[in-house]
Every structure is written in C-alpha cells, then in structure tokens.
C-alpha cells in the first residue's frame, strides 16, 4: 500500500483542505482500528495543516488521468418468468379453508351478527 495519503486514501490531490477533511473524517468514522485511525489523523494533519507538504505529496502522487466513469446501467426489472422453476411450482397450492378444517358457520343475517352489531343475541 502506498505511503502517500493521496493514494492510500483515494484523495484527489486537486481537492482543497475542506474536501480532504470531509473524506478523511468519513474514513476515520468507519475505521475500527485505533492505529489506522491515528494514521488517518496524521495524514489529515500533513495534508491540511502544512500546505507545502500537501504540495509535495501531490507531486508524489499519480495524477488522475483516466476519464471519469459514466453512469452504471439501470437495473432491469426482474420478470416473473425469470424465476427459476422448482418442484414446488408443480404442486397445487394448499387451500386456506382446507387448512382450517371443517367448520360450521352460523347461518344468520348480517344485522343479527353479534360481532358486527355488538349485540348479544
């Protein structure tokens, strides 16, 4: 791994101190290792508190000379037919009524239903 903080932490040498601070803070927050966090702090100091050092390190870092990447393709909507068929697809789905078993429902009009009307018969 490069010792140059611009390369090590993927910082753009052309970004100013504010952007460098923001990026390094993000990295420090995500970091769980104490030594690594200290290294990030050291890099931050070198890059933001000492402009001459920042310039030296920028000169020692490979410039970004590749074109910026474009947009990734939009994810395609998954069609139902794309789901792989399994054995389960060939079996008949079980009936909810069947699962409940044989029950007898009372044959009464709706206005007499005690649940709906809140009245006890």
């Amino acid at each position: 791994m490069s010792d140059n903080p611009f390369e090590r932490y993927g910082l753009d040498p052309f970004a100013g101190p504010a952007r460098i601070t923001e990026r390094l803070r993000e990295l420090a927050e995500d970091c769980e290792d104490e030594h690594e966090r200290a290294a990030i702090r050291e890099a931050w100091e070198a890059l933001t508190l000492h402009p001459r050092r920042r310039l030296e390190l920028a000169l020692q870092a490979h410039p970004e000379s590749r074109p910026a990447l474009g947009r990734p393709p939009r994810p395609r909507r998954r069609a139902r037919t794309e789901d792989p068929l399994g054995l389960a697809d060939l079996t008949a789905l079980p009936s909810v009524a069947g699962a409940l078993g044989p029950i007898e429902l009372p044959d009464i009009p709706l206005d007499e239903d005690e649940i709906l009307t809140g009245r006890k018969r």
Partner: protein
Amino acid sequence: MWRPDDQQLLERLEERTVMRALWRRMSRGAPPPSERAAGLVHLLRQTDEGARAVEQALEGELELLVALTRPRRYDGLRPTLIHHLALWHHAVAHTAPPDAEAEEAWLHALAAWTALATEATYLRALAEAVAGDAVPSTDRETVALGAPSRLLAELEALGLEGAPTLSNTTALALRVFARVPEALARCGTTHDASHPLVREARRRRRTLVDAVMEPVHHALEEAQSKGQPGEPHLAAFASAVRVWRFTAHDLELERFVLDQVLPIAWELYNHKHWSLLRRLDQTLAAVVDALANRLGQDPELVAYASRVAQMLVFRAELEGRFETQLEIAERALALCDTHRNGRLVCADLLSERAMRRIETAPLWDRKRAALEARVDTRRAESLFPGLDRTKRAKEAIAREGVEP
C-alpha cells in the same frame, strides 16, 4: 445494450489489469502502486503503438509496453505522462533488485523528473489547485524543481547504507551517479559538466567513494605507522584496487592510488626491495594502465602524466623480457616525453638494443646491423646524452666501419 459508458468501464478495468501486470514485470514482485497509476497505461494507449502494446499486454506479452515506458526522449511528451513516468520509474527503482534494470529505472526517473521540472505551466496549475496562495511562489518552485535533486539524495542515502559491505545497492548508486549526463540527454537538457545535477551527482558519488574507501584509508594509515613499506602496504593497496573495481574504475581513486604509491615505490626501489616492488607493481598494474589510457584523452589529467610514467618506468626496470621492457619505457615516454627517468631508461635500453643488433648479426650482415644500431644510438643520445652504454654501442658501430 452495450453503451459508451460500459466500454469506458471495460477499458478502465483492462488498464488496471495491465498496469498491475506491468508493475509485476518491472518491479519483479513488489506490491502494486495506487490504482491511479493505471492512468499511465491509459495515456500510453492513446497512440496506435500504445494501443497495440496494451492489446499484447492483455494477452500476456508485456515487452512492447515496457519499451514504451522507457522513451528515448522525454521532451515533447505530455506533462501528465511525464509525471506518471517519473513516479513509475521512481517506484520501480526503489523496489526492483539492484541490477541493470533498476539502474535504468533510476536513470529514467531522473530524466522524467528533470523533464517535468521544465513544464512550468503544468506545475503552476498543480500548485494552484493543491495549495493556492498558501505556499509562497519560491517554495512552490523549490518543491517542483527540487525533485531530481531529492532523487539523487535518496540514492546517496541508499548507497551509504551499503557502503561498509560494498553492497550491490552502493555499486548501483555509483553507476547511476556516473551516468547522470546520459539521463539529462534524454530530456533535452544540456548535460555537460557544468549542469547543476551533473555537479551534484559527482559530489554525491565522491561521498560514496569516500565511504567505501574508509577502511582502505585506515589500513594505509596503519601501514604507514609501521615504518618500512611491507606486506601491510601491499594489502592496503590490494583493497584499494578492489574498491576501484567496485566503483567501476573511479578516476579519483586512480589519482589517489598514484599519489599514495609513488613514495612507497621509491622507498622500495632505493632499498632494492625488488620482490616487494614487483608485487606492488603487479597489484596496481590495472589502475596505472587505466589512468595511462585516460591521459591521452583528458588534457586535465596532465599533472598525472609524470607520475604514471614513473610507475611505468619501475615496471620497465622490473620486466624480464627485453623487448617488453623497451615497449613499456616507450609507453612511459609517450605519456610524458620530458620525464627524466623515462628518457634515461629508454636511452639505456635503446643502446643495449643497438649493441645486441650488432652482436647477434651474422658476420656478413653486420654492416646493415650497425646501420640499424646507429638509429638507436642517435635516438638514445637525443633522449639522454652521455650514457656509458651509448658510448659502448657507438664504439661497436664504429668497429663495423659505420660512422656512429
């Protein structure tokens, strides 16, 4: 559907793959540099030859791409490409084993950094973007223009680390310092002895040579403290010759050896210690010959002509074969035609040859031999008049009826 953005992503991934393969090939196994170094491959790929090189690299054949990273000239390249090449070769130089390829890497790094230092517009834009007004313009220039010098300082530090053990890295540093003018020629910069980097390289090389010579200096001092020249002196000079070979025939060491050896050789000569003097001559023969060869090419070395001539005169006197003796004496005179001892020894040997010509000639051919001998005696007299042997040779010529 294959979009331009997809093509761009594919090319970026290819360039990263190729960069890593190129790095493995050139650094021979060190961990790869930052992904942004793939920008080097991207820039090289922009020419037809570069595109072909990348295609070949993707099929595992890297040599064309390696060749493209080592341009014959850096002036005229895009500043960003020069910047990539400077960092690339600098990193290769640090990580590759200290052999011929590492030597090339140091020289290319130096050439690229020197070329980049002339790209004022690029460097100004970089400094503006990175530091704005926070860095004074003089400091900016120091940072940008000082890169080649910092590289030489790094190399000296590496060389000094290995100096006590005559390490390969030290030998590499000495070779690179000696080839700095070549590196400067690659970036269209004047590369004569007056260029500051050439002078700096010479000074740093001197520091390294002094460091590797330190044990020899101690050994010589110790030998001197024992009085009479003897085995310790021979051992110290043998070490000096080893260091001289290690430094790829350093001129200053040749001068140093000549300065040191002459008083010792005279002392051995005056005390007729022929065996020790012969061994001393044999030990230092390569150094003396190297300096003798330089004398004809470098007028600034004229001060050493008489010293080298004297060492050759010692050798001529110690030589067992007559013809070789004369050859060596003639060589000494060719280097320094006013050298008194050289003229004396050469005149003596010519007179001896004159006598031998007559003595060894058949009776019927002695006149012709005397005529040839007269050429020798006349030259002997012109070199050193009044020698006894010349007188005897002239008498022998006269006896054959030839005017001496």
